[in-house]
């Protein structure tokens, strides 16, 4: 303690205190909100679904907005014909049940088990035909062509999700989410059902094989190391500009001040008076 007291008027003490506080706040915030916890990827299994169980879950958790018969209300669209894939995408990414009315629903922690989601999906699929949850083999990237996927991705996806799938802004408060946490099944379902502002990429637009190539590109890209150092968020030159101004110039200015520093005579000055 006396060590701190002796140095509390040290020129660097203020900076040290601020840096310490920042660390405390960051650790506290991280502890409260969880350090970057991602959704666990689970292999989609075509388990036997219990439609009756699904209907019961639907009535408890979804019907207040989507209506008792999933017919839709002014707050939420009809789910008749939405298909199992849409339900699985929305619920397995935590977007549904929605937290609030807003421009769009963002990914959040999932509150249902995968079996419960399949049950609800089975119930919705029983109302009218719609896109099915893809099987494990349909989303498998084994043998997929990531190079073709990169071309397909750059012509169909980068406009919104960015060149490396880091996400991007859309209009009116919507955004294209980063593709860092999506499972292959979720990516496939998103292309199939076109959630939120995303267009539907049906099998006529992107064949199942194209979809697998895109998934291969996305999963390879996000897993790949950055040969040039820290990725700086993979958002292009904006963060590079930030780094050169704050890091590059900041560092050099400190060095320049050091090179040209003069010995301070203030202490002598004080003694004179």
């Amino acid at each position, binding site marked *: 303690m006396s060590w701190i007291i002796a140095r509390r008027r040290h020129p660097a003490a203020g900076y040290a205190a601020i840096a310490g506080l920042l660390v405390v706040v960051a650790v506290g915030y991280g502890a409260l909100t969880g350090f970057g916890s991602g959704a666990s990827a689970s292999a989609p299994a075509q388990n036997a679904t219990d439609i009756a169980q699904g209907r019961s879950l639907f009535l408890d958790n979804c019907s207040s907005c989507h209506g008792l018969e999933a017919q839709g209300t002014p707050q939420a669209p009809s789910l008749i014909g939405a298909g199992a894939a849409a339900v699985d995408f929305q619920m397995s990414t935590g977007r549904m049940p929605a937290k609030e009315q807003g421009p769009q629903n963002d990914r959040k922690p999932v509150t249902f088990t995968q079996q419960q989601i399949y049950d609800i999906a089975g119930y919705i699929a029983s109302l009218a035909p719609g896109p099915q949850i893809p099987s494990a083999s349909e989303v498998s990237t084994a043998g997929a062509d990531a190079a073709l996927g990169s071309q397909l991705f750059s012509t169909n996806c980068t406009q919104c999700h960015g060149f490396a799938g880091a996400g*991007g802004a859309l209009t009116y408060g919507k955004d294209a989410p980063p593709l860092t946490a999506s499972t292959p099944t979720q990516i496939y379902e998103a292309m199939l059902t076109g959630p939120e502002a995303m267009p539907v990429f049906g099998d006529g637009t992107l064949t199942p094989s194209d979809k697998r190539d895109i998934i291969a590109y996305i999963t390879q890209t996000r897993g790949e190391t950055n040969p040039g150092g820290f990725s700086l968020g993979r958002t292009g*030159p904006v963060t590079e500009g930030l780094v050169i101004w704050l890091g590059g110039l900041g560092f050099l200015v400190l060095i320049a001040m050091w090179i040209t520093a003069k010995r301070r005579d203030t202490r002598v000055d004080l003694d004179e008076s």
Partner: protein
Amino acid sequence: MSDDVHVPGALRGLGNWVDERFGGAGYVRTLMKKVFPDHWSFFLGEIALYSFVILLLTGTFLSLFFVPSMNDVVYHGSYIKLNGLRMSEAYASTLRISFDVRGGLLIRQIHHWAADIFMVAITVHMLRIFFTGAYRKPREVNWLIGIILFSLGLIEGLFGYSLPDDQLSGAGLRIFEGVLQGIPIVGTYLAYFLFGGGFPGNDIVPRMYIIHVLLIPGLILALVTAHLLIMFHQKHTAMPAKDQTDTHELGQPFFPYFIAKTTAWLFFVFAALAILATFAQINPIWQYGPYTPLAISSASQPDWYMGILEGALRMMPAWEINFLGHTLSLSVLIPFALPLGIILGGAAFWPWFEKWATGDNSEHHVLDRPRNAAVRTSIGIAVVVFYGVLWAEGANDVIANKLQIPLYTVTWISRVLVIVGPILAYFATKRICIGLQRKDAELLEHGLETGIIVQRPNGEFEEIHRPVSEEARAVLEAKKVPLALPVGAAAVDENGVSAPQARGLMGKMRVRANQAFLETIPLPAGDGHGHGNGHEGNGHGEVEGGGQEHAAVGASTAPAELDRLPDAQPQRPDPGAAGDESES
């Protein structure tokens, strides 16, 4: 000084041999004794110089491997994720530099970071020159050369960024083509000539390459040489300090002090770039993919120095008019020409405007403290805000995404701020400057507060004020008060007749502009706190002159009275006296 140095016999012999043939000893002696001022901000321009050297070195390395060609090739290199894709040779060779050439990625990243810091350094160097008034007579030409160097740097950077023919650079090139086409009447022809036909064609990469590696670097090199020679000839400006006058420069001699510092500085700049290039990935073209006109990525931004143009383009409403049968794409033309036109044109014009508005045509070698030139500082900050808003708008989608603000809200905020921000910044900065001047005047008059309270025998409490040190006093007293125009006469005399110089539109405007410059806090009259010591025994006429100016200014009590006092003139150095410099 150099006479004291012991020179080894062999070196002396070699030196004599060279000197007897080329006679450089006198010049070298002058060079070695040249005085360099010692202030950190004087090293900003040197960052630009050294990063330019690094750019030339790394660029030479890259040119050994880069193939400036738009020929279609199928890629079969180390980066398997793009294996089998068709792409231009330019892009394929950049991939090769990045993944197959030993040290290629490091050199590429050093080159790109060096380009970024080159423009950063030019920018902050120009800001330093502007805010301290270093562009004033006799350095106006060097100021103009600096503005041209900045503009050349912009184009050089744009072309370098466009060379690898990746998705992002292609998008930038597409905008560049659109801007060219937006120029009235000649635009479409210009774009056609440059690209050798329609976009993108096969000609643009080889053409940009030769401009990027030969033409513009040559121009920059020539202008940098001129810049440095002129600076050498005119000598450095100097921050206000004790004994620093317009004819007497303080600092350290080139040899051995400054050369040690500047060599260290070269290594520090190189180190900073090497560290950045090692740890921070820049321009990962393999992620962007080869350019195809079909695709565009979100967060497509240019390098930082083009951000202001990008922002202007994003901010501008989609206006297009038809004028006498010519389509005028104002939505492209205005963002391209207006912001940089205002900033660079204004910067080029400013030294003459200031001369005109202040009537100050004398030489200046001692710099102004920014607070003491309130109008200049406020205009500078207004331009910085103007630039900053446009610059930030260039990243509007990234800002919208990261800060969760709707995109159009960001754009509308910037549209309002780009007009309101500079105006607010001007007045706020001016008030802050005047406030700081007031604080300085108080420091001179009352000295520093010591926090020591004493009780007098009569019971009165009093705080002890310590007079500021001689050095600090010299800095505070370096302030110059602008001249009231028209010189020697009131703009309107007591009979309501205006002075001849104040008549007409230009005369009235000049008086108005002058009044803005006149708003300043006068320095207090000399007091008894040991002030007189500064004038004893140093024998510098300039310092005495400063004292007289100080007394003359101190005689007035309110800024409003200044324009009625013909003797409230700034100190003028003897125009006949050449700049004489000496060692510290």
